[in-house]
């Protein structure tokens, strides 16, 4: 490998043709193999890209459809999982595992809903033995299956208790709980403290929506909660309400 000399005139022209994109595939592949091996060629190619780059601004911008992000996010999840298997890392804390799954502003609740209905709901094992049959509960799970919060709705549907599953840091944001029933937009049930259980009242108009198969979702919002009345931050956890 030669890293000291500038490319020959002939190679320089080839790099320019490559940067412009006019080479046929066999020539491209031959050059790519040399680029992999020779730093000097790669550096010179970068200069050619810089030379031509001003033309990049002449491409008209075009907003991609929303589902491209959802697909990308999905394939990245697989990518991250694959990398973790390939190179095991030291055991990470709860927040680290949360970080991995903090996607979601774009995927939005539509995707969250799809995820939610596929989740297996695990009921808390320490529920009161003599609980009325009409209490509802769910484990709000991160996409990797870890439990973020557990939520239990009282039998009279007037309030619910939400308990964090572990200590965690929210990086300046606040967790907000949302109720999603049928095709209705998400309804905020309130902010969740990071360091302890909370009992939240269920507004009268939402009481009828808190049923088995309704979905609870948690998004990360600015301090004080979502400014818009709808989730604005990533949806990090969700769970489907079920009778206990």
């Amino acid at each position: 490998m030669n890293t000291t000399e500038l490319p020959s005139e002939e190679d320089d022209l080839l790099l320019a043709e490559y940067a412009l994109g006019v080479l046929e595939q066999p020539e491209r592949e031959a050059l790519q193999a040399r680029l992999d091996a020779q730093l000097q060629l790669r550096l010179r190619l970068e200069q050619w890209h810089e030379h031509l780059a001003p033309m990049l601004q002449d491409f008209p911008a075009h907003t991609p459809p929303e589902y491209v992000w959802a697909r990308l996010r999905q394939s990245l999840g697989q990518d991250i999982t694959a990398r973790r298997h390939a190179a095991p890392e030291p055991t990470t804390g709860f927040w680290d595992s949360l970080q991995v799954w903090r996607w979601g502003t774009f995927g939005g609740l539509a995707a969250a809903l799809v995820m939610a209905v596929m989740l297996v709901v695990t009921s808390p094992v320490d529920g009161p033995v003599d609980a009325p049959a009409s209490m509802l509960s769910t484990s709000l799970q991160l996409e990797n299956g870890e439990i973020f919060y557990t939520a239990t709705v009282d039998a009279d549907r007037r309030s619910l208790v939400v308990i964090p599953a572990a200590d965690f840091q929210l990086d300046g944001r606040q967790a907000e709980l949302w109720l999603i029933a049928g095709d209705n937009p998400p309804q905020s049930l309130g902010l969740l403290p990071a360091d302890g259980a909370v009992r939240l009242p269920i507004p009268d108009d939402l009481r009828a929506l808190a049923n088995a198969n309704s979905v609870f979702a948690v998004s990360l919002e600015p301090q004080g909660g979502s400014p818009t009345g709808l989730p604005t931050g990533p949806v990090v956890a969700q769970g489907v309400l079920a009778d206990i």
Partner: protein
Amino acid sequence: MTGQMDDLQDPQGIGALLLATGKQDQQAFEQLYRLTSARLFGICKRMLVQSSDAEDALQEVFLTVWRKASQYDAERGKPLTWLGTIARTRCIDRLRTGAVERHTDPVDLDALAEPEKLDPVEFASDQQRLDNCLSNLQNQQRSVIRTAFFDGCTYQDLAARTGVPLGTMKSWIRRGLMSLKACLEQ
């Protein structure tokens, strides 16, 4: 992202987002997608005729960005150049190896407007410098170089679309590229 942006200077902090993405910061990556996906999708839409091909390409572009962001070197290049180059390269890969539709419509070399001559004193931006150097080329050279850049054409494609013999096309573009080099690197 709206309209024409003279933002290769990076007022939006895309370089910082790219560096953070290189450290596997997913929020930075999401923000990067928000800020740049319209530009990069514009590239894919133009180079690949079919929208579905452009969408697939965009997804691949951002996967590449996620995996290779740690290789981005702020010392050596502007972030939007780095991103735009990945997008063009991925599209060219698809055009050369995949069953994707290419631009085949005829190019009328006589129909192209004369470039506006710029005052050399005003060559403040890279874009103006390149425009100036392109304006020094013969009209045909300039137009086929620009068509190659925007449509992802090979020499063969360009020869077919213009009706110019392949050897002539190669000679036009090679001479044009060497003129650009002399002009930009003087």
